């Protein structure tokens, strides 16, 4: 038995393995495993052969597990592409696919998988949503097409599509996976590749493959990393002395204001941030128990946040078993992943309050009513034990220390995949995959009583809040795969047809009350579910290894739509032409690979990002106990008809992709260029219903179209390949733009969908507008004086009606980058290795809400408190005008270059089987930007008291034996 892999440790299905001098032979299954029976005892020579690879001969004892690593015969044919419901040779792959294998992961990205591949792939933008350990990230493949549908890619782990919906208390699906367990990640980008996933593929697909056990001696790997996180930068606010002076300058003639000043110099940011330690341990055992290849791994991560009290703990276990039965006709793959994660989320409102809390006040002032923490009290703050000013900033230290916000997440993902090679027709495989993804999270977000910032339902009564959420997703896939080399006509055929069924179930509940439980809020609970089912087929046809044609079709049904709208067709086709195989290039050493790809496909979208999985049903909702109404002497739970669209249907995206894969100088330079054009129509959008026609003001329906176009370029260069010195450089570039082309049912172009709330009841900063990029900023145009200083409250009267009102808002810039580049490099010299990776993002703008909230006017509130401001207030010196935060002045260019990590390692000489490598590195090394806020990289571009990304110093040790 054994397994065949390529030089990148990817399985090579379809490889013929025979024993020299016998007529025993077999073919490797989709995961590269093979098994030969009735092998004569004693050492035998195995011969592995496969198109595009050099024949490999290896001697082994009969019955021993063998690992065969084949080398490509030419660079271009060397990889297998995981494409969903099977694999193909990369040479046969027709779509736009990007792969990152474990060895290319960003070193030291221990907290989450997404950090491991940030910047590695053209067209894939990953933005961590905060600097908290185990934080969520926003992943966009070629931008997002949807307005209100999901823009998240489909994530498939070991053939189980997983739900990427954030759970209450859980930080992120990808953060729940141990990066050390991952073998590689394949990203399917264009529709010809993704259409096999039909309904869920509009935003691309990430296929994650975990490491497997191999035949051979058992191997133990232990990896430990210790880290220290520091905060690279604080928000520049007034210190106590400066604050006293600016308050006196602005309010010097009002004693009621200046009397509020204290005498301290408290650096509140210093009070809430810390240098944080983290540790990450992984141990894995892999090998083969008798004939059962296995891999078991355990991971433990414990990281503190730079925000005090924040903590993330993750324990993971992964088991992979790959038994073969029935004389290798039945290959079984069993995966079991478990996660136990606890979080202490801290009260993150402390971040904003550390900026705004009066620096002239001490952390504690000895009061007895507010647990000693300095608290704004009414009547001019004269009595430290007075009633609270409930709308004043809360003492951030008190918020951290008096909040108990913990969650526990348990999750298990598992599947059993049976691949049966027909006895009567070995070219035909039947594949059954049964999977599940169960998750549970529960936690509480409590605050002690006698705290000023929690006042509902009982003033200063504290808060008890408990919540729980369960997800139970089940999967059943079945497909037949037929692979045939028809040598007579120099053709190869790979046909797949199958059926997929999945069920998604989600329930949850939460309840809050004050600490004394005098006024409990009603229980908040929900149960929801939906089903997806699909039939799919794929035909790969390859002629002379020069021309490949792939055609796929999928028919998907979702329970989220009405019966007559439920099913959608998602066809795709792609064609490639391997120019390299043509005579004029065949013998060229300069051009080692050249392949042209053309693809076209349609994909669907039905992920609504809400818990309402019945948007087509006419429903009624009964109210809870706090929204009853009095008629006579009784209170009645009210019954409301809900808004719905009986005709809601699939959002579809049509993608056309042109690609060129290239390799020069015997593969020392290689890469790809892709140009794509996507049109999405029937966008699932929550838009206003025509007044009087529905039971909610906004209704989720299919309105609007968008266009998305882009270019991707990638280059891998082997700069040196010597015995003692290797040096690789990777570079990628992507350009992407999404424009809204329609937003209304009747073609009116004036529709504006505003969103992106900032401070103030109705101030929103972004909008979807026809003809503009999705989610652009929608602001007033600031007028500046001749020195370039913004004139307070002066905006351009853009429509010339001599009044400044909401009709003068205009589209200005966009949070999404126009151009992204990634650069990474790896070098090794003798036993030393060195790597770095970084990213450049151009054309992305942020709304600097922290600066917009900072004015002289904000120094004092008539509620009777002072509030510190950032030094941005000094720049504008706005004192009275309203809505200065709606000015385009605060839309700032946030283009940046970030050095994501630098790592250096040393591998000790092997001691018998013991290999030891030590390494040290820095994550988030530096950022170069003109942006004035704390960090330019904000998903969605709304920079409002962001949990700052830490700079992390790491030391690691890796032992294998």
């Amino acid at each position, binding site marked *: 038995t054994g397994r065949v892999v390529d030089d990148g440790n990817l399985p090579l299905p379809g490889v013929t393995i025979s024993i020299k001098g016998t007529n025993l032979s077999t073919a490797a299954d989709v995961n590269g495993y093979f098994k030969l029976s009735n092998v004569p005892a004693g050492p035998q020579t195995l011969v592995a052969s496969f198109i595009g690879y050099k024949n490999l001969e290896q001697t082994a004892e009969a019955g021993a597990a063998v690992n065969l690593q084949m080398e490509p015969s030419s660079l271009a044919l060397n990889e297998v592409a995981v494409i969903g419901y099977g694999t193909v040779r990369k040479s046969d792959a027709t779509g736009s696919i990007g792969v990152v294998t474990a060895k290319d992961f960003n070193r030291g990205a221990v907290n989450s998988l997404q950090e491991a591949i940030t910047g590695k792939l053209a067209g894939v933008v990953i933005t961590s949503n905060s600097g908290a350990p185990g934080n969520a990230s926003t992943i966009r493949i070629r931008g997002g097409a949807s307005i209100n549908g999901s823009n998240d890619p489909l994530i498939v782990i070991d053939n189980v599509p997983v739900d990427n919906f954030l759970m209450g208390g859980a930080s992120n699906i990808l953060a729940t996976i141990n990066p050390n367990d991952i073998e590689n990640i394949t990203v399917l980008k264009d529709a010809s590749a993704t259409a096999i996933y039909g309904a869920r593929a509009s935003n691309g697909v990430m296929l994650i493959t975990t490491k497997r056990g191999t035949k051979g001696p058992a191997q133990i790997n232990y990896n430990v990393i210790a880290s220290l996180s520091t905060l690279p930068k604080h928000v520049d606010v007034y210190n106590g002395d400066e604050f006293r002076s600016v308050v006196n300058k602005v309010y010097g003639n009002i004693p009621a204001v200046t009397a509020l000043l204290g005498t301290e110099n408290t650096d509140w940011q210093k009070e809430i941030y810390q240098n944080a330690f983290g540790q990450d341990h992984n141990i894995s055992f892999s090998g083969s128990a008798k004939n059962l290849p296995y891999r078991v791994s355990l991971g433990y991560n414990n990281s503190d946040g730079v925000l005090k009290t924040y903590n993330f703990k993750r324990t993971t276990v992964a088991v992979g078993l790959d038994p073969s039965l029935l004389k290798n006709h039945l290959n079984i793959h069993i995966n079991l992943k478990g996660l136990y994660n606890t979080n202490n989320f801290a009260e993150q409102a402390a971040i904003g309050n550390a900026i705004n809390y009066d620096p002239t006040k001490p952390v504690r002032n000895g009061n007895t009513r507010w647990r000693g923490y300095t608290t704004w009290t009414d*009547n001019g703050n004269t009595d430290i034990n007075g*009633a*609270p000013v409930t709308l004043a900033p809360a003492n951030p230290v008190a918020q951290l220390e008096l909040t108990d916000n913990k969650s526990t997440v348990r999750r298990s993902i598992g599947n059993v995949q049976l691949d049966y090679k027909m006895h009567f027709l070995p070219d035909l495989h039947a594949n059954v995959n049964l999977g599940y993804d169960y998750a549970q999270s529960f936690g509480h977000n409590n605050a002690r009583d006698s705290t000023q910032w929690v*006042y*509902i*339902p009982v003033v200063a009564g504290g808060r008890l809040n408990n919540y729980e959420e369960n997800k139970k997703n089940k999967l059943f896939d079945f497909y037949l795969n037929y692979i045939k080399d028809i040598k007579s006509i120099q053709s190869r055929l790979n046909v797949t047809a199958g059926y997929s069924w999945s069920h998604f179930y989600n329930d949850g509940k939460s309840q809050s009350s004050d600490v004394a439980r005098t006024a409990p809020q*009603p229980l908040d609970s*929900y*149960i929801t*579910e*939906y089903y997806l089912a699909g039939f799919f087929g794929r035909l790969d046809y390859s002629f002379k290894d020069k021309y490949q044609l792939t055609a796929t079709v999928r028919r998907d049904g979702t329970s989220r739509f009405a*019966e007559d709208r439920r099913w959608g067709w998602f066809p795709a086709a792609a064609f490639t032409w391997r120019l390299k195989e043509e005579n004029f290039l065949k013998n060229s050493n300069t051009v080692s690979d050249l392949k042209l790809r053309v693809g076209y496909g349609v994909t669907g979208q039905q992920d609504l990002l809400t818990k309402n*999985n*019945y948007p087509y*049903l*006419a429903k*009624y909702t*009964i109210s*809870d*106990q*706090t*929204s*009853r*109404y*009095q008629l*006579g002497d009784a209170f*009645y739970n*009210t*019954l*409301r*008809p*809900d808004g719905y669209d*009986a*005709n809601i249907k699939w959002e579809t995206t049509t993608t056309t992709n042109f690609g060129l894969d290239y390799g020069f100088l015997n593969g020392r330079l290689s890469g790809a260029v892709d140009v794509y054009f996507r049109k999405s129509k029937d966008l699932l959008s929550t838009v*206003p219903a*025509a*007044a*009087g*026609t529905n039971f*909610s003001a906004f209704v989720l329906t299919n309105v609007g179209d968008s266009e998305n176009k882009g270019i991707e370029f990638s280059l891998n260069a082997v700069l040196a390949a010597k015995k003692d010195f290797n040096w690789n450089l990777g570079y990628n570039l992507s350009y992407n733009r999404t424009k809204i082309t329609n937003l*209304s*049912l*009747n073609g009116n172009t*004036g*529709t504006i969908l505003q969103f992106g*709330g900032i401070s*103030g*009841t*109705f*101030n*929103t900063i972004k909008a979807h507008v026809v003809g503009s990029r999705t989610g652009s900023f929608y602001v007033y145009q600031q007028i500046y004086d001749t020195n370039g200083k913004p004139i307070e409250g002066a905006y351009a009267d853009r429509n010339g009606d001599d009044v*400044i*009102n*909401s*009709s003068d808002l205009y589209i200005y810039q966009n949070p999404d980058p126009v151009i992204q580049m990634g650069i990474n490099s790896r070098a090794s010299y003798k036993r030393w290795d060195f790597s770095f990776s970084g990213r450049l993002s151009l054309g992305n703008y942020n709304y600097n809400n922290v600066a917009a909230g900072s004015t002289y*006017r904000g120094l004092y509130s*008539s509620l009777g408190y002072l509030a510190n401001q950032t030094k941005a207030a000094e720049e504008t010196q706005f004192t*009275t005008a*309203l*809505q200065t935060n709606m000015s385009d002045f605060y839309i700032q260019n946030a283009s940046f270059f970030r050095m994501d990590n630098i790592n250096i390692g040393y591998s000790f000489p092997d001691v018998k089987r013991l290999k030891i490598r030590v390494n040290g590195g820095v994550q988030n090394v530096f950022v170069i930007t003109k942006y004035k806020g704390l960090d330019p990289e904000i998903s969605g571009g709304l920079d409002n008291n962001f949990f700052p990304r830490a700079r992390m110093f790491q030391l690691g040790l890796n032992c294998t034996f």
Partner: protein
Amino acid sequence: NVKPKDPRIITSATVFDKPEAYKQFLAKLYATLSLTGQKGESGLPEISAPDEGTTAFLRGYWALQEVTTDECINAWGDGGLVEYHGHAWSDQNSYVNLMYQRLFINISYCNEMIRAVNDNPGGLSGTQKTEIDAYQAEARFLRAYFYACAMDIFGNVPFVTEADKPGAFLPKQIKRADLFNYVESELKAVADLLPAPGSSEYARANKAAAWALLSRIYLNAQVYTGSARYDQAITYANMVINSGAYTLHDNYAGLFLADNHLAGDEIILPIASSGANSRSYGDVTFIIHAGVGGSMDAANDYGIASGGWNGNRMTTAFVDTQFPDPSGATDKRAIFHTDGQTLTITNPTIFTEGYLCAKWKNVTSTGEIGGNATFVETDFPLFRLAEVYLNYAEATVRGGAGGDAGKALQLVNELRARAYGNTSGNITSSQLTLDFLLQEKGREFYWEAQRRTDLIRHGKFTGSDLLWDFKGGVMAGTGTAPHFSLFPIPASDLQLNNNLVQNPGY
């Protein structure tokens, strides 16, 4: 097919299998006057907004009727409200949009209720049938009320009735005058079906509510239709007065307190509030919180320990004109908080400028504080007898047939006698002028969401006949353009519905 598992979600197929569902639906129709959704103050709204409280009918209507006038100026600097007070709103104004959405959602619910009763009465007993037929009449009354508001605020609006099933159609626009006829005929029809004055359950409409509304729209008919109907304004005011079911509550201040459900002698139809059962940031909770701040003792004097919002207060012009003695010693309706406040407003965002309105409180007439620190008990009088009195007086002064000048004077003097505590405030017939009546309406009804309509009827809303601080955006006040007497159809609906034509000036 997947049936929802959540027991709180009910499909239309089975919802009315239980007859009590009809009353729960009826409760929803009334609840749309002040609540925002199915989950307390936030969570399951029917209209989405950054702050769910702003989607409530009463909050939106109150702001639109008060912040645009001399009765109220807001300190938050919120763009939408600054545009309100300065008469500078556009068809993009969020508050306008929410008001519009709220009116038509509520109308849709009424239509659905009317259909539900028409379609689905099978299997009901005789008494149940009578009962739900009565609900239908109330649904028609509420729909007429919402349409009357739409007529007042927007003029020409989309028109949908129970004949229009929900779905993707584009409603036709009805002319203001035609809508008047529709509202008039509906109210007359339901007035026959509703219970007798004073005989309905608390917070449910009876005949007197329909008559009071008829009287109100007839008084404003000149504005709505171009022709005066003062005689009918008198007729329906008389029907309320002569029903004998209502008298003036002895204590003016008691009409606005946490136990004002005890003021049913005067209040014809309230919007009910309850801190424990009906939580909303858009009912009287809003009126009280938004008006409390400065040196007011929020917890003890206003019953809201969670604190005021330092937003709304009176304009200087209003206090000066209506209440030369703002202390309340002469006219007890001058219920202001002046401690720590300046009368003059030089900067609208400084809450300590301008007198505060202390009329609304979450405290009972015996001084007890409402049960919830945030959500108040105080009901909102949607119709009360005093308005009917003033309708009668004004229609009579305006020459309505059937009006008796002596009776008009007597009704006004009854209000003044209550306000002064004696007859010293009584006026003579020569003083009973239109200008006096507008001022008297202000004194009696300030902060009760009537002012904008009143000023328009008197020709003093736009233009420069009546100025108040920061009208038109300048401190002294300046004349404003006449088109602001109607609000614009929100741009978002104009873009959706090709049948709609924008009001002039926008």
